[in-house]
């Protein structure tokens, strides 16, 4: 193997800590109650169409998309709707959720529950997109952008390449890795479906070189599928970022402020490809996903197949409990994940992992003055100057922050990870993005 491809600007290499990479996916038992948040995807929250007391089956539609950028939600369990009430979700806010008391496990009869591989793609591109849309599929890498929207390029734009994101650049997380190893064939069919929907001839699967077994397995499988190529990538964070992945795989740069379709690319996560397979071939909506439960103190780092709405606590129990000196529980990876306020928070479509950190590693180090070392600038994958942007945000100079392209920040955290002075750069950058975003929206209204 020659020099591995990667993206051009910046990047860091945190300790990988893939503790659960050898733990095969286990099916977690259906919980007694699920809490299904209505806001699970990027964009508008969904609208509940069930009410208290309704009986639901697994896979039955319980909430409809609340707008163009939104997604349907299906019941992950069978049982009775207990209530629709606000509850703390992974964002830490109380937001409307559908509570369902589980009774048995009765699936919607249209869903094909068998494991047999169905490789034949019978649907037309339009039917595929509609099926994906009605199945409520969103990007499972964590960004939760509705998948069907990505499959409908705006007028005048056409897709040339489909890029499948098997990078999993976040330390600790292994759910995509396991899915690639255990559901390789389904992923291949899923990719073929996505290719058909997008009318593209070529798909690449980008995988970082710390998953050599997945690279080998999918490369072998790809021999029997037209137009699919596995691209091994150098381990470099944040390679799973859409723009970074496109740059790494096809060496194209998405222009500032534009979407990947601008350079003829559509990126989908491997987990999404699997969900697409299940939706299109098996008629199964997005009601479960693979979640990594991991951390240095976790007794049994695991990968679980979990129904959406399962409280995080049950996943932790299944991994043999919350360690004694837990300081922080994160939904997602250590670089971009959100710290949870409560273990009652449910698993949602975007939950890729639950990371449990020990007390000693949970706090932040004391901040000291910026020594202008430029390391944040060197590692920024977007070519920004985090020290300057954070200063601008801190001082309320949002116009300056906008001119210095703060909206291009992908919040990967590389700057803050690197900062020798332990400055919470990303905190300030987020504040700046929020304010600049508001200013832009106000301007556009006028």
């Amino acid at each position, binding site marked *: 193997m020659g020099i591995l491809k990667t993206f051009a600007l910046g990047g860091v290499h945190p300790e990988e800590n893939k503790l659960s990479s050898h733990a095969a996916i286990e099916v977690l038992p259906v919980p007694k109650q699920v809490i299904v948040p209505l806001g699970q995807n990027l964009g508008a929250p969904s609208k509940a169409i069930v009410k208290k007391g309704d009986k639901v089956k697994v896979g039955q539609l319980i909430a409809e998309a609340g707008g163009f950028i939104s997604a349907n939600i299906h019941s992950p369990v069978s049982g009775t709707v207990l209530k629709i009430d606000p509850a703390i979700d992974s964002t830490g806010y109380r937001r409307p959720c559908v509570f369902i008391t589980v009774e048995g496990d009765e699936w919607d009869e249209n869903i094909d529950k068998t494991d047999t591989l169905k490789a034949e793609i019978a649907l037309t591109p339009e039917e595929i997109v509609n099926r994906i849309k009605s199945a409520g599929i969103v990007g499972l890498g964590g960004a939760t952008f509705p998948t069907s929207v990505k499959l409908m390029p705006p007028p005048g734009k056409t897709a040339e390449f489909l890029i499948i994101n098997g990078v999993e650049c976040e330390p600790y997380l292994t759910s995509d890795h396991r899915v690639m190893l255990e559901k390789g064939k389904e992923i291949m069919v899923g990719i073929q479906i996505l290719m058909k929907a997008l009318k593209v001839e070529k798909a690449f699967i980008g995988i970082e070189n710390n998953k050599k077994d997945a690279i080998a397995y999918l490369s072998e499988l790809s021999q029997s599928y037209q137009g699919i190529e596995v691209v091994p990538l150098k381990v470099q964070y944040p390679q799973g970022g859409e723009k970074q992945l496109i740059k790494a795989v096809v060496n194209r740069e998405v222009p500032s402020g534009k979407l990947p379709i601008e350079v003829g690319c559509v990126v989908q996560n491997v987990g999404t490809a699997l969900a697409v397979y299940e939706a299109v071939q098996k008629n199964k909506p997005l009601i479960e996903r693979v979640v990594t439960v991991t951390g240095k103190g976790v007794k049994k780092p695991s990968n679980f197949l979990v129904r959406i709405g399962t409280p995080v606590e049950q996943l932790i129990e299944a991994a043999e409990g919350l360690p004694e000196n*837990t300081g*922080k529980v994160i939904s997602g990876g250590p670089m971009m994940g959100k710290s949870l306020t409560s273990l009652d928070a449910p698993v949602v479509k975007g939950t890729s992992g639950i990371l449990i950190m020990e007390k000693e590693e949970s706090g932040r180090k004391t901040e000291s*003055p910026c*020594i202008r*070392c*430029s390391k944040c600038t*060197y590692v920024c994958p977007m070519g920004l100057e985090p020290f*300057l942007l954070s200063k601008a945000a801190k001082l309320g100079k949002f116009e300056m922050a906008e001119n210095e392209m703060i909206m291009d920040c992908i919040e990967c955290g590389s700057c803050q990870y690197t900062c020798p002075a332990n400055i919470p750069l990303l905190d300030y950058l987020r504040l700046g993005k929020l304010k600049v975003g508001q200013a832009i929206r106000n301007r556009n209204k006028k």
Partner: protein
Amino acid sequence: MNKFTISGSPHVHGDESTKKVMYGVVIAMIPAVLVGVYYFGLDAVRVLLLAVAASLFFEWLIQKYLIKGSLTINDGSALVTGILVALNVPSNLPGWMVIIGALVAIGMAKMSFGGLGKNVFNPALVARVFLLVSFPVQMTSWPKPMPITDGLVDVITGPTPLGIVKEGLGNGQTMSQLSTELPSYTQDMVGNIGGSLGEVSALALILGGVYMLWRKIITWHIPVSVLATVAIFSGIFWGFDPEHYADPMFHMLTGGLMLGAIYMATDMVTSPMTKSGQLVFGFGVGLLTILIRMWGAYPEGVSFAILIMNAVVPLINKGFKPRRFGVKPGVEVKA
């Protein structure tokens, strides 16, 4: 109910710290310090200890009684400044002058601007220039290098190679006439020449520079652009008139150039933030150095060159931005 820490991502941090960066610079200066002690003996030890102790003391004093803020004298930055002050003065400088140098570096150049990270000019260089203009005689009476292995002998002073050239050429002599008085390149490399305590051995300084590159404390951009600019400009003049201009190798190996290019111009706080900006900065330092050495009143110009370029850094930072992702060079993007 469990109490968890709630904070924004990222939840992990790399192992860099200000302290590690500063002590990395200290480690990088060890070869130059050892060479200084080898050639200038106990006097060098005296200057080093005085400069470091005074720098730490003044930082502590100012933080404790003037600013009344948190004490950060163990972050290593005052230690670096102290060593750099020592490396920048002749080893026979009277002790009280060394202490004044430390006071100027810490008090005037660093703390009065707001402390670590806020200063515009390199503190040790401010001290060097302050001492040079205040005590021109003592600051230019360079002790001759006497290997410590020769035993303790009386210190003899003599001019630096740059001083010999400046004065000789000024008196109408040619380079070939001067060549007998000048040390060989080997002597320049190991440090067997007159000069400030820490600037004499190009080899020791380069060694420390390589260490800092490896530790990613500095990038190659500033040292290389400074040295290349000096080499190219001195080379042009030398090429036309080798009798009246010293050769590029001589310029690179003598005076404070190596010390300046590797340790002073690369000072994070007072150099540009982007690599392109650093190249421009280095070019400016190199050019000004040569201009001062060839036509200025002083034989040596590195300190002035760096301080002048320090003042230009904010402008360079404005003009030289990193390459933005998704922006074609030269194309103005308005969000």
